[in-house]
């Protein structure tokens, strides 16, 4: 579809309409404040629901029919089963069998297991995807094979879009490791236990119809009700909703790569030297190998100095859980559990608290938790000389990651990106990022194995590292060093068609993802 492009406040060319609907170009941080009310779902009445509270329906297809599925509807799923998800694929098998076409699929994230759905993109069952596109789906979309325009949102941005009515969900399908016939559900027990269902919260509140799918039906009441049955229309029991070993790993492992360990150690030392690690501080570190290792180095420093953290934000894992249990951390405020220890702890420990994108990340709310965190450790595929960063695409233009909570976490007091200077010859620091996901003014520190670059806006941090033995360099020096080793990369040949847009946390369009020339 031909659409007009404008240059937004970040200097990126973005479309003014996306999938036929008007879109607001990015205006700057904190600039766009919509003056209207939130989306209001229709009023339901108990008269239309079983008086005994039993909302069980025999099969997904039946539930979809009762929910009034039609061509062109918007259907959502969630990624709390990660690469072990069996819900989305079963769901689209059912939709396909019903002969329904042109579905807008809104997953909170997709995983390689969803490569299965390419056939439904090809045969017209799915029109396009609004949600992260990884692996095979990312390749499919990047090569321009998807009909509509993809929309990439952060976890907080997804909540915001649903809440604001920017993204109206007709049918939400929520996979639940434990649920009762009324629709109360949680992620804490059952063969597909994943910890929590926070990513599905917005859908349960705002979707027109909500279907809970479980492989572990329990009698009422299912406690705790992370998803409240009062929002739920139908409950479906199926044989399997997930592959346990792919949902949470039995054991999370810290990286063994000496280079990554070095990066992690340098990051922790930076936080120590600059006084970020202090009594009562808070931190968030992801589940990647390097991030896990940063957490472990934090632990060592905290133990040595007798420092306690007030809270840590999850993705939780056994390392974070052990810090909680050792008393090094007062609370874990958790967005997702990455291993069985995380699930166990969340079920047992009242100080291990499940959160949602509403509490943690939603930008159109009366504050959120992300901004309160003292330091957050994040990844990036590319960073440019203005500290702008990319997390969704590869330097060759292919989509390869979702945004996740990444954009939302940029509101933390100090944002640190530990990245290798180059990955298999591909330099991470570029003149200009292929896709802009995070404005440079929000990114404070880039740690590489060959030096640390501090954003010149953070004069306070630059002062604190003066006279220390930390290897401080400018970002331009790091880029030069990478290019001296790898060679200067040729400009990537991307096409001129927009295949997806990246939304900022306020729903405005931050950047376009362009079709890759094949």
């Amino acid at each position, binding site marked *: 579809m031909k659409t007009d492009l404008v240059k937004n406040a970040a200097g990126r060319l973005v479309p003014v309409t996306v999938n036929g609907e008007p879109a607001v170009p990015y205006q700057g941080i904190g600039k766009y404040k919509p003056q209207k009310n939130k989306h209001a779902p229709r009023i339901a009445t108990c008269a239309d629901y079983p008086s005994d509270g039993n909302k069980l329906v025999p099969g997904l297809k039946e539930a979809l029919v009762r929910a009034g599925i039609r061509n062109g509807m918007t259907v959502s799923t969630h990624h709390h089963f990660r690469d072990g998800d069996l819900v989305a694929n079963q769901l689209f098998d059912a939709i396909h069998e019903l002969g329904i076409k042109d579905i807008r699929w809104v997953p909170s994230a997709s995983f390689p297991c969803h490569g299965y759905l390419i056939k439904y993109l090809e045969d017209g069952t799915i029109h396009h995807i609004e949600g992260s596109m990884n692996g095979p789906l990312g390749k499919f979309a990047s090569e321009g094979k998807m009909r509509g325009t993809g929309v990439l949102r952060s976890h907080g941005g997804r909540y915001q879009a649903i809440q604001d009515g920017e993204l109206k969900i007709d049918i939400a399908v929520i996979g639940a490791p434990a649920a009762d016939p009324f629709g109360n559900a949680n992620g804490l027990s059952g063969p597909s236990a994943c910890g929590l269902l926070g990513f599905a919260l917005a859908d349960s509140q705002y979707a027109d119809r909500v279907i809970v799918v479980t492989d572990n039906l329990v009698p009422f009441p299912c406690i705790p009700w992370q998803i409240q049955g009062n929002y739920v229309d139908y409950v479906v029991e199926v044989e399997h909703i997930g592959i346990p070993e792919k949902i949470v790993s039995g054991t999370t492992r810290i990286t063994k790569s000496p280079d990554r360990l*070095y990066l992690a150690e340098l990051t922790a030392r930076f936080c120590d030297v600059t006084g970020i690690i202090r009594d009562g501080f808070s931190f968030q570190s992801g589940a990647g190998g390097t991030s896990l290792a940063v957490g472990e180095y934090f632990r060592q420093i905290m133990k040595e100095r007798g420092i306690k953290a007030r809270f840590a934000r999850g993705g939780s894992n056994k390392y974070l859980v052990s810090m909680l249990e050792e008393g090094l951390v007062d609370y874990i405020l958790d967005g997702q559990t990455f291993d069985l220890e995380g699930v166990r702890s969340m079920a047992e420990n009242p100080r291990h608290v499940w959160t949602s994108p509403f509490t943690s990340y939603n930008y159109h709310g009366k504050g959120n938790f992300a901004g309160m965190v003292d330091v957050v450790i994040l990844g990036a595929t590319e960073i440019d000389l203005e500290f702008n960063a990319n997390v969704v695409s590869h*330097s060759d233009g292919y989509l390869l990651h979702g945004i996740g909570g990444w954009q939302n976490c940029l509101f933390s007091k100090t944002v640190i990106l530990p990245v290798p200077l180059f*990955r*298999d*010859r*591909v330099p991470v620091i570029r003149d200009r990022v292929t896709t802009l996901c995070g404005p440079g003014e929000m990114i404070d520190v880039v740690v590489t*194995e060959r030096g640390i670059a501090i954003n010149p806006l953070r004069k306070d941090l630059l002062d604190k590292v003066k006279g220390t033995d930390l290897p401080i360099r400018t970002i331009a020096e790091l880029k030069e060093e990478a290019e001296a080793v790898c*060679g200067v990369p*040729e400009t*990537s040949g991307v096409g001129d068609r927009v295949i997806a847009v990246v939304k900022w946390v306020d729903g405005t369009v931050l950047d376009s993802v362009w079709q890759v020339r094949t």
Partner: protein
Amino acid sequence: MIVQAGNAGKDIRSDCLVEMESADSGGIRIELDSRVERMYGASIRKLVEEGMRYFGISHARIRVEDQGALPFVIMARLEAAARQIKKDIPEFLPPMLKENEYPSFPERHRFSRLYLPGNTPKMMLNAGIHKPHGMILDLEDSVAPARKAEARVLVRNALRAVSFYGAERMVRINQWPAGREDLPYVIPHRVHTLLVPKCEDPEQIMELEAVVETIKKDHGVKEPVFLMPIIESALGVEMAYRIACSSKQVVALAIGLEDYTADLGTRRSDEGTESFYARSRLVNACKAARIQAIDSVFSDVADTEGLARTIEHSKQLGFEGMGCIHPRQIPVIHAGYAPGNEEIEKARKIVLAYEEAESKGLGVVSVGTKMIDPPVVKRALRIMDLAVEMGIVSKEWRNEPHED
């Protein structure tokens, strides 16, 4: 004829496989399959074409399967393949990094020396950032016999193109006399120290030194090339002192306990009872010859506590360093062999006395009633530099108040 060099496959990174088929016509045909095609495809093709022109090969089919190999790796793989098609091609050398042009010296500290498999580029690229005292590009046990030829080319290119970050530039050659073939690939490229494995005869060292001298002269190499024989057999242990004295270039002896214990017909134990004699004998031989004694590698990478205990014992026996096989071992080894407080205190006094004597124009340095020889001053300076480098004392230690 179809020939190959390098590595490809699912788990290979930062390397490439070059397959070459000679032809009588058709020019140079390049088939490139690269994971960095979009960013470096054109420059890889250009490099291959340049190489083939340089080798004087006008007709060939070349397939490059690339997993993000850096240019010096592609050049090495291309040359190693071309050498199998055409003998006597010129060396296709990457530029020598300016930052690699620094000297070594016999007494430098050799607490840690990191082994890097000579045919695995991925492990070489960032090894220097872990700051080992020495980086060893290994042509011996970590390279399969069929891959020795291509590894030599890669090691040569790595000596030029990989930053060593100030580490001593070491190569472990193959056991003498097979190692003779390795020398032309390393001597002209600023290697500091050769590790000579399974050494058990001073004659080997003398022969080796003569070959090194010839190559040095041919290439106008002025800097010394030091030798570190590795003693790995019962006979070697018996000959240790004579090996230590066999050349002025021998700066250290290292012991290799895996082969040694096999030679004894026993196995390495945690307590090391079986190697106590050999290790003591080696230390004694080294001290008698005024060179460094270097201990065997500790092979359980995950067991840092065991490593620390072993180093404590090793330092007590008189060893001054240890080989390592994983960068994680480096900080533990450095902390273990670092000068103790008493040693630093003594060095501090000597350096201060020396600097005071120098500023007063005195020819003689003394601490208390004791005269200090220049080599002692030099050693004391090194200890203080090291203590600063390791963060044990501050850079400003000269100006800091100190109780005397």
